[in-house]
């Protein structure tokens, strides 16, 4: 590569880690948030199923 081309492209490689980090961190932050929300949703759904069962049992006992 001639000297002028080398100078034109001189910032490309040094800036690459910062660009990769910027894009990767955005997606990481969004994915972590989605993961936390989904985990909370699954936990709440499991709790809801148990509670609904307990409530139905209690109502059945009261009816008897």
């Amino acid at each position, binding site marked *: 590569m*001639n*000297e*002028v*081309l080398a*100078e*034109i*492209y*001189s*910032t*490309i490689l*040094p*800036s*690459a880690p*910062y*660009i990769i*980090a*910027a*894009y990767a*961190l*955005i997606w990481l*932050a*969004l994915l972590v*948030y*989605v993961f936390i*929300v*989904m985990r*909370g*949703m699954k936990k*709440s*759904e499991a*709790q*809801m199923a148990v*509670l*609904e069962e*307990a*409530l139905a049992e*209690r109502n059945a006992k009261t009816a008897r």
Partner: protein
Amino acid sequence: MSETKRRAAKLPEAGQWPDRIAPWMLLAGAVLTTIGFLMAFFYAGPVNGAAVDGVELIGGQMVSSKLLLSQKIFYFHMPVAIVSFASLAFAGYYAIRFLMTKEQRFDTCSKIGMEIALLFVVCTMVTGEMWTRFEWGVWWTWEPRLTTYLILMLVVIAYFVLRSAIDEPERRATYAAVISVIALVDVPICYMVTRLIPSSIHPVVLREGGMSADMGMTVAVVMAGMCMVGFGLYRLRFRQVRLAQRVEAMKEQLED
């Protein structure tokens, strides 16, 4: 229909039409931002930096300055910043509605809006820092936009610190709503500061001639995608919070 039922029917609730479109919005947002990512590197033209000693023909064009790859960060940096402002606007709107009605559901909506805002504020800060570190060789500079945005981020963090410090629900929601409104007031200041105090780091790009057509198109695609991602995340979190609230209500019912 009784007054209580009529009021409850008007409140935002999980399972309404926005929840039905939210997963599709999230998916469309992911697709659009991926397209935007590809456009940033393969469609939008490179931005030139300092002049070099000579001229070279690259891709049919005469180039006489350094090509700045770091500018590609801008295509995600600006849209995430705009979505953070939009989230704060939503949070502020629900905070005002809470202050007017004292209805806890609006506090829930405002809190989730602030959460989404914090997420996008962090994304904006991270992308901005990466650019600043490479182009300016520093992690931080007290430039007007950076300073006002830092203040905004601290207000959003203060919102969550305050929430975790107060146990009584109504007092917590009232104080939090006030902080949310303060954050909302900071949004136009933060947005307009580059117009009021011009700076070379943050040029005004949302104006006629601020961006070339290819840059504008790329930003528009990422912006649309990020707005959809923000909306999808908001509804997903809202559904989860409402479910958790119903679990708590059911626990109380069983304890009685």
